[in-house]
């Protein structure tokens, strides 16, 4: 584990240094990333110029959901977003080159072409989150702070796992980076809004099948003190770390199975 983190840092560091040689490009791309995240939020504020509540949530409360989700996706995108290139790597054979190096292939796939500019996403998500924390009148307690911090970490782990699951799937299905977008960026868009606007089937799906609801929805219900419109167990409010751990375990298993299959089928 320590070895893997060190290897990740070494490879990512080389990419950061390389990207800094074109400073102007780096900054314009970073700003681009930040704006990408903000555009959706601007759309939400435009929606709120016509209404006061969306799915029972006011604009500050939606901003909180938005900030949690954007932060989690931003961290995952920064750390492991490049795994979506795996399908292409399998096809062009560069994955083979990774398998003959003494570093875990997942670390190499994730760290290769590490793009620090993706911090832009995180920065704007943090901005929205900051505003949300000021604008909502949350009655803070130690538990709520703990839940909020746990949410940031768990959400990031959940989206990291989604990325890894998608890339494991690509070992079997070939280049499916397009389809991955539906789960990663699609999952982000879905969780930017209160789940109360979706039918209960969708909510069950993102609770029990792909637990995206734990990225922000359940902990936010607790932090904001809002009643759950779907009457799910109250324990879910605190279950984000559990969901994250489970999904991470599943993702790790699938990744390992994918690599094993690759090495035994020579796909």
């Amino acid at each position: 584990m320590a070895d893997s983190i060190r290897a990740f840092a070494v490879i990512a560091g080389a990419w950061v240094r390389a990207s800094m040689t074109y400073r102007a490009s780096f900054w314009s791309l970073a700003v681009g990333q930040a704006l990408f995240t903000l555009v959706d939020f601007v759309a939400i504020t435009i929606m709120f110029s016509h209404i006061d509540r969306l799915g029972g949530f006011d604009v500050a409360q939606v901003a909180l959901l938005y900030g949690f989700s954007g932060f989690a996706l931003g961290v995952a995108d920064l750390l492991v977003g490049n795994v979506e290139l795996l399908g292409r790597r399998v096809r062009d054979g560069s994955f083979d080159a990774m398998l003959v190096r003494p570093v875990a292939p997942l670390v190499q796939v994730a760290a290769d072409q590490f793009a620090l500019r993706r911090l832009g996403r995180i920065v704007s998500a943090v901005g929205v989150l900051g505003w949300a924390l000021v604008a909502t009148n949350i009655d803070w307690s130690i538990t709520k702070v703990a839940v909020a911090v746990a949410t940031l970490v768990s959400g990031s782990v959940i989206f990291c796992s989604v990325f890894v699951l998608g890339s494991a799937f690509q070992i079997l299905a070939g280049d499916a980076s397009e389809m991955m977008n539906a789960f990663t960026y699609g999952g982000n868009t879905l969780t930017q809004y209160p789940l109360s606007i979706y039918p209960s089937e969708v909510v069950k799906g993102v609770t029990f099948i792909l637990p995206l609801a734990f990225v922000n929805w359940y902990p936010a219900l607790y932090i904001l003190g809002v009643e759950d419109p779907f009457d799910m167990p109250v324990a879910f409010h605190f279950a984000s770390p559990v969901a994250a751990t489970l999904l991470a375990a599943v993702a790790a298993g699938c990744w390992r199975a994918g690599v094993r299959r690759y090495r035994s089928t020579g796909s």
Partner: protein
Amino acid sequence: MAMIEVEDLRRTFVVRTKSGTLRRGRQEILAVAGLSFAIEPGEMVGYIGPNGAGKSTSIKMLTGILVPTSGSVQVAGMDPSRRRTDLARRIGVVFGQRSGLWWDLPLRDSFDLLARIYDVPRPRYTTNLAAYVDLLDLGPLLDQPVRQLSLGQRMRGDLAATLLHDPQILFLDEPTIGLDVVSKTRLREFLRDLNAERGTTVLLTTHDLGDIEQLCRRVMVIDAGRMVFDDTIAALQRVGGATRTVVVDLERPGEPVVVPGAVVTRVEGARQWLTFPADASAAPIVSALASGYDLVDLSIQEPAIEDVIRLLYARGGAHKAD
């Protein structure tokens, strides 16, 4: 102990065939069908075969990328598929058609990164880098991004990158593909010196038989997943059916010469080509020519390896050194 030891290695692939719109057939293909060989430390062995013969499948099994269906492999005393990561520190792999370097990074950064990935101690890295930069003439290229390098420059960079961690075994897959004559010669010289001075074991896969002739004493030929030849280059040239050629320049054009044991196959003005079995001695033919005709010049051509290999494939038999 042998550096590489392969015993009855097999690898099957399942191919799904489309038969009709809905039905799908399942077909097993035997890509490697019972390979056995051993390579001693310090050997430099040529590994050739037609496309689809199982070369890259077997190399993938030797390097741990692919798991064998059956049989045993030991590389540097390890089972590659079980101890892929440990083995990675002891071997170097160069895939000729794709680079192991980072496309957008300057060459120097790629080297530096690999040294860290392989935990090469700093002093060792500095010494190695200096040595390879010098031997492969990489100095002026170090600060260029890899994508700007020519094919030959990139290959030299790839070789240096693969050697930074002092691998005991080097797997080279088509290292001279697409290179011009000068780059090719340079690369071959480098490999020869590396093998001689550092004792690095080299397994060289190539389509360029010139590489094999100039570098390897031993050559393994596989076809359809089986070893059809495993012996010295000299033995390869004497494989039954192969012929050598005498080229003579006579003083003036004339009728085809008549020499026992050789047949004239081509006449062009005063120049004539005579072929004779590769395993026969050239001496009686040369002396017969010299005594019976007025010669300006005479040379003997060894059989082209391409032709010999074609004969080998056609014959389908196996030849192994004892």
